[in-house]
Every structure is written in C-alpha cells, then in structure tokens.
C-alpha cells in the first residue's frame, strides 16, 4: 500500500506534538475531517444540497403547487386566461401584488410559471453540469494517466492532442459545433430534444478535460520516479495495478479539486450557451430564461432576477465549496 507524503507528514506532526496516537487514517478521511470543520464549506454544501433536492423534487413541488413551466400541459392556464393584451400577467408581479399561486410570478407572453421554470431549469443545469464534470474528469484522468506513465510517442501524441484542444478557441467551436450536430438529427423530433441535451454535454466535455489531463500527467511524471513505484515495477507488479492501485490513490486530491471547481464552471457555461441560443430549444434552462427576460427588465425586473439569482447562488456556493475542498485536500494549507 502506498503511503502518500501527506499522510506521512500528518503522522509525523501528530507524533511530534505528543498528542494522542493517530489511528490509520487515509488522506481522504483527513481531508473530509478538515472540511467538516470549515463553516463556509458546510454552509455552501447545505445550499447545494437544498438546490439539488429542489431540483430532484421539481415534479413533486410543481405538482403540489399546481404550477407549470410547460404551457402545452393540458392543465396549464392558457395565455389569454392569465395575461393582458400586452402580454403581462394579470395576477402577481410586476403590476399586481404577491400571490401564493405563483410566488415568483408568471412569464410574460406565455404565462408559464417562473418558479416551475426555475426548478426545472435548475434540474437541467445540474444534470448537465454534473454529467459534464464527471465525464470530463474521467477523460482527463485517463488521458493524463496514460500520457504521464507511458514514455515516448504515446505521451507525445496525447500531449499534442491536449495542447491542441487547449489552444482551440473553445467558445467559437461550441457556437459552430452545436448547430451542426443538431441539424444532423433535426429531422427526428423525438430524438431532437435528446440530441440537443447530449450535444450540450458533449460539447462541454470536449472542451473541459484538458486542464485536468495536464495536471494529472504532471503528477504522474513526478510520482513515476518515486521509490514506491520503482519498487513496484521491480517486483513485477502489473502495469494496470501500478496505475490503479499505486498511482491513482495519490491523485485523488487533484481529481476531487478539479471536479469541484469544474462544476460551477459548467453551470455558468451551460447558462451562457443557452443564453446564446445554443442547443436546448425545448428544455427549460436558466440561461434561456435570462435571455427571455432581458427585454422585460425595465417593466418586470423580477423575471430577470429570478434566474440570475439562481445561477449566481448555485455557482457561488459550488465555487466556495470547491475552494474549501482544495484547501482541505492540500497538505500545505493549515488552518
């Protein structure tokens, strides 16, 4: 079993101070213990948890409150029932008082409920961000590991590919790629929604794995020359086992850190891409809500603040949480 420098360090410190003897704790356990003591991290984790639960329970909540984001739902109120001739809602904000029927008001022109749309938008954001983060982390780790551990041309080729993707103008590529992929499947309506959704995730993944791959490669390069790896090689441990049993546990820290910092980035990116009108034409998305609400800002500010606040809180919480995770996993920081 590999012993990381971090764990050794902790152990040495504990022994040196003469405190209670340290039971065999893994670096991850230590990090989690440090994380639990971090108030900001706990508060952010709580926020993220609440938003996750809200997103998961979106159908339950909207069902219980009898609100709908999809105006084509048979039970949703029709536009002319809840909107005036100018398209503004006749109940609730912006021109009428608060109502529990629609706590965050109705969207102008369509009469879809803002709260319902927000919940389903959160769902989209989280699914997209989480899938993209996990997938890009997986790809990054695999490429980083392989490239760092294998000397020679494999490393050169993989490094070149990584550099190439890094130097690519990713936003431009996303803007150009999304409609191409969508138009490829545009004919089939059932497929279209799924394709748009998957496309968005794929695009985020394609341009999201490189930094981790580089980081991992660098780590592997230095670890590879360490004694415990050389010892393992000498006694004939299979490569697979070296990669997964010896190297990977030492890479937990950078992986977790990258993952936790990628999440908010992907949330923001998804909103941004939807705002620009990419991909999701028929799925609720916070970015699209912002885009819709823009033109109504002067008359109906709440309509814009709702999605902006949701994106803001979600990315801020995830970011702070990510920072804390990094601190917790980084042996060089002390609190």
């Amino acid at each position, binding site marked *: 079993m590999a012993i990381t420098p971090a764990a050794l360090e902790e152990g040495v410190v504990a022994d040196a101070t003469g405190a209670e003897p340290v039971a065999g704790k893994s670096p991850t356990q230590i990090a989690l213990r440090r994380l639990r003591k971090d108030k900001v991290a706990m508060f952010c984790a709580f926020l993220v948890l609440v938003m996750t639960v809200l997103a998961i329970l979106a159908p339950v909540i909207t069902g219980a409150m009898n609100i709908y984001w999809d105006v084509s739902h048979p039970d949703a109120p*029709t536009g002319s029932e809840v909107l005036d001739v100018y398209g503004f809602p006749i109940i609730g904000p912006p021109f009428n008082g608060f109502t529990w029927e629609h706590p965050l008001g109705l969207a102008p022109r369509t009469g879809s409920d803002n709260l319902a749309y927000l919940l389903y938008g959160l769902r989209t954001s989280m699914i997209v961000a989480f899938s993209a983060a996990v997938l890009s982390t997986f790809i990054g780790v695999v490429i980083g590991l392989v490239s760092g551990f294998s000397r020679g041309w494999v490393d050169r080729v993989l490094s070149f590919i990584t550099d190439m993707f890094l130097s690519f103008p990713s936003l431009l590529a996303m803007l150009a790629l999304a409609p191409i992929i969508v138009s490829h499947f545009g*004919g089939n309506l059932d497929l279209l929604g799924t394709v748009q959704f998957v496309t968005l995730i794929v695009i985020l993944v394609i341009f999201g794995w490189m930094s981790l791959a580089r980081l991992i490669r660098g780590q592997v390069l230095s670890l590879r020359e360490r004694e415990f790896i050389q010892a393992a090689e000498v006694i004939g441990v299979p490569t697979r086992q070296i990669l997964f049993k010896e190297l990977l546990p030492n890479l937990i820290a950078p992986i977790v850190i990258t993952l936790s910092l990628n999440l908010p980035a992907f949330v923001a990116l998804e909103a941004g891409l939807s705002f620009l*009108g990419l991909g999701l034409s028929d799925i609720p998305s916070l970015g699209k809500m912002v885009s819709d609400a823009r033109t109504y800002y002067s008359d109906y500010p709440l309509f814009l603040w709702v999605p902006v606040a949701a994106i803001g809180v979600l990315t801020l919480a995830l970011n702070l949480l990510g920072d804390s995770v990094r601190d917790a996993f980084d042996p060089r920081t002390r609190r």
Partner: protein
Amino acid sequence: MRFRKPIVALSAAGLLALAACGGGDGGSSNNGGEKVDRETLGNVGSGQDPEREGPVEIEGAQEGGIATVYTQVGLTTSIDPSDLYYTDTSAIGSGLLFRSLTQYDRDPETGQMVLIPDLATDLGTPNEDFTEWTFEIRDGVRWETGEEVTAEDVAYGIIRSMDNKTFPGGPGLYFSNPYFLGGDKYKGPFTSGTTEQEAVSVDGNKVIIKMSKPFPDFPYYGSFPAMGPIPEGEDDPDEYALRPMSTGPYKIKEYTPAKTLVLERNTEWDPATDPGRTQYPDGYEFKAGVQIDQIDQIMLGDKGEGQTSMTYEDISAQTYRTMQNEAPDRVVTGTSPCTYYYAPDYRKIKDIKIREALMWALPYNDLMVTGGYIPEVNAFPASQLMAPGVAGRVDIDLFGHGEFETDPDKAKQLLEESGNLGYEIKFPWRTDNDINTKSKDVLIKALEAAGFKATPVATTEAKFEGDIIDNPDSEVNVRSGMGWCQDWPSGSTWIPPVFQSVDIKELGQFGTNYAAFNEPEVDQKINEVFELPAEEQADAWGKLEEEIMTKYLPIIPYFHSGVVVAHGSKIQGYEIDNNLGMPAYKDIWISE
C-alpha cells in the same frame, strides 16, 4: 401581394390590393394611441387623381441625413422589378427606386392612398370595354445613367413581366399572363426567346396594351414596379436582380440580399417629372436580419443613430405599452389590407369537418398574446379572407364562429361525429425561433384539448420557407400563419390568387394557393365572374367568397392585420401606406 411582415408567431406570404370602386373613408393611419377603424381595412387607395403634376414639396421639410431602416426578415426576396411582389420590397421599390406607369401617393388629409400618374402622363385611356389601354409616356424621365427612358423601355418591361417562369415570384403570373392578349401562350423574352407578342405595342411615345378580357383595374396594376421600364439587353435576370437600374429619386449603392440595401441620391431623377416622390434624405440604409428585440431597444432608446432610424416591423406589445406612455409621437399605427390564415392542405385534409374542428380549436387569443400581437391594434377578428371595406364584400357567418372564439368541446364533437378523433395535425416549428417555439406549445395544448393529435415538424428559420411553406411535398398538413394582402381593393385580388387551383406538379410549388385548394367548380365560377361586366364584378366576388368559405372552408382565417411601428425622434413624416401596410417612403424627411 405577398405579405412580408414580422411574422411573429408564424410566418406569412400574402397579397395586397385596393377597391376598384367607391370612395369611402377611414382606414387611415394615425399617430399615437387612437383605435384604428377596423371596418375599412381593405377600402384603401380607391381615390384617383389623374391630373397630379410634379414636383412635390413637403412644407418645412429639410434635406439631408441618412435614414436607417431596420427589419427582421426583409430583403430576402428578389428586387428585380419584374419579380417584385412582396409588400416590403414593393414599398421600397415603388417609393424610392423604380418608376412605373402609375403610382400611389398618400393624401395627408384623409390618410388614404391616391392613385396618381407616374411615367404615364395620366392614368391611362381604356377603350370602351377595357380590353385595350393606352399610356402616354412622359418626356424628360432619365435612367440613373442619364439616358432617356423611352416608351420602348417601358414596353419591354411590361413584356418582361409575362415571363413567369423566369420571375415566378412576380405579379405577372396573376395579372400579365391571365389578362394580356396572348398571355397564355407567350411566355416572355427569356422563356420564349423573343419579344414578339400580341399584347404590348409602341406608337411614338404611347404604350398600348391589349387585353384578352376586360381589365378595368389596369391603372392599379400600373403602379407595380413590374409595369415600368427595363433596359433591354442589360437585364440578365440573375445579374439584374442584384443591381436593377433605378429611375426613381434613389439608386442602389450597395445591395447584399438578406443583409443590407444602401441607397444614395439619384442625381438624374428630375422632381419636375414626378408627381409623387420626394428626395429629402441623402440616402437610406436598410438593415435586415435584426432581431425584433434589438429593433425595439433601438426605437425605445432613441440614441445616436437610433434617432434617424425607423422600422417597418411591428414593435412588440410590451414596447408598444411603454412607448404609449413615454413617446406616443414616435409610434405610428395604421392598417394593412392583409389577412392571416391557417392553410390546411386540401389534398391531405379532405373532410371539411376536420377543417371546421380546426377553426374551433385554434387558440386565437393565446397565439396572439404569445406572438406579441395586440388585438384591435394590429390584429382584428377575421371570419373570411377579404378584409373589411373591400367593395362587394359580404360579412360571412362562418358556422356561427364568433370573434377570436375558441371552443375545444365543439371541435371535439365535430371530430367525434366525423370519426376523426385523434386526427394528426402536422405543423411547422422553427426550433431556432424562441417565439415560434412558445407558440408551438400553445398550439399543441389547444389542439390536444380539442381532440387532435398535434405534431410539430421541426425546421429552422432558414429552411422554413423552402422546405415547408413552398414545398408541396413537405409532410406538414397545416401551414400556419400564412397571409395575403390585396393588390387593390377588389375581390379579384383576393379570391383568384388564394382559391384558384394551381397545377402544383407543373409549378413545383403552391403559387399563392397555400391550402392547395382545388375545386373545378370554384375555378369555373372564378372565370365566370371575370366575364361579368365591370360594375357587377364586386358583388359577385363577395358572393363567391361566401360560397367558398361556407361550402369548403379551405382556409381558417386568423386575423386581419394592422401595423404598429416606431421611429426615432429625427425621422419626420413617417406614415403608413395603408395599401401596403408599409412606410410611405415618399413623405419621409429627417430633421436636424
């Protein structure tokens, strides 16, 4: 005339006209918040003034400045005079670029469009039974190159309009070929390869056009750019469409289809020869492909270049609401003799009960609010094709259907009775158009509530027209939000274009009959009306429309449209040409 407007919820293509007889008032455009008189939408442009002479001066108007005109969908259709039949390009062409036999001018007092002479010295002289028209061509009119416009040039332009194979989008197919002598056989200079034909001849400075049947409305047709001069030999259709030669007060400086059209002063234009046009601004810059939201913001902001900007796209409902309060003098409302309708494909939806059910099922009010239309401002209830005010029009009682009435139960009952419950309606959906995406949801809900199965057919803004609207083989069976505007206020510019059968196989498209309506009996009756004496035709069209609508219901009327547009604070004299539902460019000037 084909309709080209900010097809918000839907999309449209349409036609336009003016009443052949009778005076009548109303239908005027008015500034600010007054309600528009909806009884007379179609009764426009019936006034005539054959004596009018140039030059035209607008009191207090200043010269100079460049007017920027924003549009979302404009400039995608040909601006070749022979191929020009959309309302937006017609207004630009007639108002600024191309002179024709006659023209319209807006009477500032009544707000009506008045037919006045243009290249001809008067409104033409018919023979007794309106089968031969003579126009005397004015002296001193010059091309932008400085060369004299001759009667031969005008004659060639008129002959060229008969080439409906080369100019399938133009008005020739509907007026030149059916009415001109030998128009059924002669196919135009490019298709037939000769200018030898029976209809058009030149005698000195006179152009004489012979008809195959009485055509009392010819002076109105004379106002189309297609009835103007074309320089023979320099008019290769592909090239000329990109740089047509100007005879009007402005000429083309730069033109990129679907993007920009920049006009500059045409110094060869002589105001003394033109009874209608003016040349106050230094130029015009048309910018197409600008989103409605952006246009609204430019108009609301009224900053910098925005002050000399205008738009002919309807402003959105919320912008209208704000501008009503803050800058009512920069909002212009008016009417347009246009009707929007849903076009069920007659070849596919054969049972009238389904079409009637569709009529009851459509969520008119919801679609309007989602589409951003404002009832009684730019959308008026419709139960027929012809706009109110067209001579001879009969108010049709369409199966007892009320104004903007939606009754899903009745629709369901009709479907059940005819054994069509769950009938699948396939309609176009432009996935990259946000508003269309929302309207699609509204439509799905209403159709399903009425017992239909609703299937949107995904397309994109760019492919919409080619793949769906003009494509007879598209899988859709209801074309949503089609539109037609009259060419002049006569039933003859409503009924035949929309209801006369078209040989779809030969043409490869619908022409303007987007419902693919095809009843030999109706075709027969349309021809019978044309044979009637001129004074009886108006009533006959009205009766025929009633018969078609109540017996076949080939289209589902959505609304008669109005116009609500805005301009910057330095644009002066912006009024609506209510014959086109477009700006009356001839009256515009820019203040300092």
